């Protein structure tokens, strides 16, 4: 429930893993517009904004994906300490852009990036933090939406775990009367992507890349048909779904593979 004056403010910590820190910057930006949040929380660790640090906290916001076995231990410590763990942004939520490499051989990628020093860097397939620890709440997006961050955090402080939006982007896009980018012969992942960003990419004329992750139960077969009708080859369809959705599409096709087996 809401911390009134007599109650201690919840102690909040921000942690980053493999990420660009853009989501933490968005948090700083959101706090400037909503300074009232600072009256009701106590930020005890936030490397992006303060030099304080603490081993004691109630709510942990985690930015970034887990890309090394050694990250797992740090994640578990955070989970054991915090009573609420929030995945902040696409990296933490989905594995993010970092997961693009998951469709390639790990050794090839490491040698391409680190060349002769590849063996110095232990790394594995980037994954969502929910693959390692239990996550209570997700703030989706790359970067997150400041407004949604404020909404979800307010809910959290009121003792309500608000779910992020789970309907497709097309809904928001149509409400704004944007030109559908398909009308210009371009591709958009809006029909399978969660709304909540106010359809910002189509509003500026670009197709959605799916940074907020897929809606529950997307009709992928129908969507592939639409993409093929718009001239994409099978390989191009797969590439199109790679920027943010690599992990989600890979786990979908694994599920499908499991699913069809018994019929043979």
């Amino acid at each position, binding site marked *: 429930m809401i911390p009134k004056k007599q109650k201690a403010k919840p102690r909040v910590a921000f942690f980053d893993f493999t990420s660009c820190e853009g989501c933490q910057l968005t948090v700083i930006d959101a706090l400037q517009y909503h300074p009232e949040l600072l009256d009701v929380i106590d930020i005890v660790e936030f490397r992006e904004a303060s030099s304080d640090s603490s081993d004691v906290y109630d709510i942990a916001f985690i930015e970034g994906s887990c890309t090394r076995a050694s990250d797992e231990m740090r994640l578990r410590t955070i989970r054991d300490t915090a009573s609420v763990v929030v995945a902040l942004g696409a990296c933490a939520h989905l594995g993010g852009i970092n997961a693009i490499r998951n469709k390639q051989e790990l050794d090839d990628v490491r040698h391409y990036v680190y060349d002769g020093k590849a063996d110095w860097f232990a790394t594995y397939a980037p994954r969502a933090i929910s693959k390692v620890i239990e996550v209570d709440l997700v703030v989706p997006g790359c970067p997150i939406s400041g407004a949604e961050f404020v909404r979800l955090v307010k809910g959290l402080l009121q003792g309500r775990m608000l779910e992020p939006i789970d309907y497709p982007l097309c*809904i928001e896009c149509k409400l704004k009367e944007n030109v*559908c980018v398909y009308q210009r012969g371009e591709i958009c992942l809006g029909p399978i992507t969660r709304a909540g960003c106010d359809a910002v990419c189509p509003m500026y004329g670009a197709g959605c890349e799916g940074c907020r992750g897929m809606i529950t*139960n997307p009709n992928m077969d129908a969507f592939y048909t639409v993409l093929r009708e718009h001239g994409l080859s099978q390989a191009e369809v797969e590439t199109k779904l790679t920027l943010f959705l690599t992990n989600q599409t890979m786990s979908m096709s694994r599920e499908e593979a499991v699913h069809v087996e018994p019929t043979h």
Partner: protein
Amino acid sequence: MNFKIMPKSAFADWVDRLIGSYRVVGPKRKHGQYVFDELRGVEGLELHYPTSVLPPKKYLVPQKEVLLNYHLDGSRLEIASKPEPTVILGIHTCDIHALKLFDRIFSQGFTDQHYQAHRDSVILVSIECLEMCGPNAYCRDMGTASATEGFDLHMIDLGDVYAFNIGSQKGADLFKGFRQAFDAIDTDVDQINHVLATKWDNFPYRLDFDVHEMPALLHESFNSTLWDELGQKCLACGSCTQVCPTCYCFDVTDEVDLLMEEGQRVRRWDSCQIHEFAMVAGGHNFRERLALRQRHRFMRKGKYQMDAYNMVGCVGCGRCASACLAGITPIDVMNELCARQQCSELEPFASVVAEVAA
């Protein structure tokens, strides 16, 4: 009928005068499409437009509307919306028919006071389409390609002049003190009748059956195999319902400030095509399958609204067909159902006949 005639050369003056007294909105071009938006003058107003992305229903049930402001201790509870008097110019007749349906929906049982407040504050100025507005429209089949009521003023383009059919006192008042609108004389009426009578060649029929049969056809098609086929194609994107002038489903949420003192009750458009629409407490979803959502949508359009409000729930504007990336169109769906049911053998519902004839 009571008509005023206005030379087109005077139209800009008239619009400017309206803008002096009201918020005036009308169809404007935006990145190659048309949207209803506020007018600063007659420039930008496009009365000859195919159709708008969203219908003018957005001025009666806004996409997002604060309904109530309140204090949680009960000391304050007030209706938020105080709609501005608004003239909506250039409404196509299909959208006028859709608003007639809205008037019934929002007044049945409890009158929706928020809708009614908007309704009382708008003045509807429609325009007669003289040709089909786009390849997906089928307004003639649905009986909506013309209108004799439901508007405050209705414009007919007679070349050099506009004729205005006066539908209400609110409409007539828009000419108060304006000297360039004249009572129609016999030759004007002849010309109006000529234009209205000869436009029909530009409106092909596209349904393979009579609209009177639509509710019966859907009734018979409840277990059609077509719903599964549509479910396989549909993306569940919700675009079709968002752009539809007869869709009105909404969601209401309470948004409370951080200290849980002040709150707002907000209404937003919802869609029967999305996953969470039919999700109830405990996580059960009674329309999980897309086939069931598609069936529900078309049943609403062609039958359920008739059962509940005695009007067909589709006005044939074609917006949903234009918006659908999967190529699902009501014309194709209805004709396919008809083909599968041999619908010429169906008995029309008596109530539909009464409505369409009225």
